[in-house]
């Protein structure tokens, strides 16, 4: 069963407010692969990521999303998370009054208790998180701040990557993680992602720009348009798009 893909999407159809956004989407992601999904605004990229995360706003009209062979569409968002699916948000939301440290520990412990491992107390957790902080080059003062509250765009995105690394997710979907980042932050985030990536994991990058792909080498590039994947290629496809624009594919 080793060759079961981490993710296999079959004919996925999704609507929000009775408007169909995803129209028969198909995608297969194997272990060790990095996929990039590109496409114009409104093509359904963010919808795709949120549907996989289990956002309740969307209605699945049909199709399957097999995660290691199991359809996750009927599962609750937290169950999908426990199984190892991670979504890095395009706009990470602020959570006033909740410290980053508490939030991270709760998430980490939720995962541990799902795996029947003992939860860590705050002190034990501190030593775990300290190591991870270095990966995204954040200082530990960052832990005592409230989740995303008053964070700069770059800090918010780095916080997402920190969570991904902490939860050690098997499949990570990064929704425009590169948007709003300056060159330095982009480098840090990309290095974090590259350090994290292993043979038994997979990553889906949703992005508008080719520049992220200068730092993270995708195995496949897909172009999404009008709720479907209309073209699949290698990293070269992204370069071609950068020059010719999406219009070229129409």
């Amino acid at each position: 069963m080793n060759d079961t893909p981490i993710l296999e999407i079959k004919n996925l159809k999704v609507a929000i407010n009775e408007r169909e956004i995803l129209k028969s989407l198909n995608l297969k992601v194997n272990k060790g692969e990095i996929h990039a999904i590109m496409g114009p605004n409104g093509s359904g990229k963010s919808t795709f990521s949120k549907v996989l995360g289990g956002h309740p706003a969307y209605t699945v009209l049909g199709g399957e999303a097999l995660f290691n062979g199991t359809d996750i569409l009927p599962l609750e968002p937290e169950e999908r998370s426990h199984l190892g699916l991670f979504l890095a948000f395009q706009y990470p939301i602020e959570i006033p009054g909740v410290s980053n440290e508490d939030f991270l520990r709760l998430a980490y412990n939720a995962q541990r208790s799902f795996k029947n491992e003992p939860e860590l107390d705050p002190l034990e957790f501190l030593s775990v998180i300290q190591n991870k902080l270095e990966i995204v080059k954040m200082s530990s003062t960052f832990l005592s701040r409230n989740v995303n509250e008053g964070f700069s765009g770059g800090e918010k995105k780095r916080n997402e990557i920190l969570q991904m690394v902490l939860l050690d997710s098997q499949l990570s979907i990064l929704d425009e993680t590169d948007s709003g980042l300056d060159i330095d932050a982009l480098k840090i985030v990309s290095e974090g992602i590259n350090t994290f990536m292993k043979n038994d994991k997979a990553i889906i990058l949703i992005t508008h720009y080719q520049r992220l792909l200068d730092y993270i080498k995708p195995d496949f590039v897909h172009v999404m348009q009008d709720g479907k994947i209309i073209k699949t290629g290698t990293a070269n496809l992204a370069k071609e798009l950068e020059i010719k624009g999406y219009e070229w594919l129409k």
Partner: protein
Amino acid sequence: MPYESKEISNTVLTKLLNQSYKYGFATEIEKEIFEKGLNEDVVRAISRKRAEPEFLLEFRLKAYRKWKQMKCPEWHILKFSEIDYQNISYYSAPKVKEKLSSLDEVDPELLETFEKLGISLSGQKRLTNVAVDAVFDSVSVVTTFKEELAEQGIIFCSMSEAVQEYPELIKKYLGTVVPIGDNYFSTLNSAVFTDGSFCYIPKNVKCPLDLSTYFRINDEKSGQFERTLVIADSNSSVCYLEGCTAPQYDSNQLHAAVVELIAFENATIKYSTVQNWYSGNQDGKGGIYNFVTKRGLCSGYNSKISWTQVETGSSLTWKYPSCLLVGDKSKGEFYSVALTNNFQQADTGTRMVHIGKETRSRIVSKGISAGKSKNTYRGYVHINNNAVGSRNYSQCDSLLIGNLTNATTFPVIRVDNSTTKLEHEASTSKIGEEQIFYFLQRGISIEKGIELMISGFCRDVVTELPLEFAAEATRLLSLKLEGTVG
């Protein structure tokens, strides 16, 4: 947000917030109850029943006559049908022997009632560091640790007993902080109050135990009008707690209490309330009408009064614990969490009146509104021209859960001198669907997520509560503090 929030707000949130009211039982007990209705004869009858000295009857009659001329205030934003004061019984007491010499003579039914409420009054199981005065409808049932406290000269007893045993103290202080005619409900209380707690801490004594009154409304037809008076003499200090519950009835019961605190030179009074009166059902039927006047007088130099309240119950709450800062360098504090859900309405806040020089006040108010409830903060800070060098810090934060609720704040600050420092902060936030999804996506359950958000939101207030109450309050607010550090 285009996306339907009903799913989340209506299922899990409701489940969390609507945990059935576990104190909603009523106790079947033989009781003596007055006919419904209010007139001078009823006032006299209450006084006679309690064998009160003449001055107190005069106090009551004066209040009653004043009240007759007053009108129910209309400046609040609470909506309720007019209260029929002739349809309420003003005295309801469990039948007991004339005088209780020991706990053994208390009706076991009553002890059991309090036991069920988590307040053990009997010797072995009672809380070891809290003295409790238990008030059932109109009368105080029992007060624990009285003798132990008396050794240090501390008086802690029911108001009825204080009227008999310490009439001179009652005569001297009753109505000095909340005078007759102060407001409609306090004046009604002055006419018909039945029981409550009395506490006197002598000079230079730090009260070794937390003092506590537990109020229980049991009868469906009667109102509860309790009166509490706490006096802290020079260089003394006391920590006072108050808890409230009531059975679940379809009708509304009236609760109109008055609490007066007096702190002399260098004295400190810390007064905490966890209010969990029955709040009515999910359709807004039933519940307590809670009209309370609480006021503290910092009369001495460097005296301090601190109010902490966690208001979770009642159908209506109308309550503004206040401080009159008369002594120079005196200090007033108000920490509040008010949670409303379903059709609950709360109009609560504080008043800080700075009269002495270099007086300080601090207001931290947190309103959590869910369901179709209305939650109002109303604050008034007045710094008089003589109160030079004074300071006030006010913070009022509102947290909204769902899309149908309503939070309002009316902070008023008036400063009559130019040497005062003021700070005012306010915020409104919402537990929204996107935040909940963020928690869920990270594998954190919705209950834990909300607990964490609510506990973070209320932390500044809950940490002000004494330990025993903090636990109850956190439970009440469906939050656990174990997820937080320190």
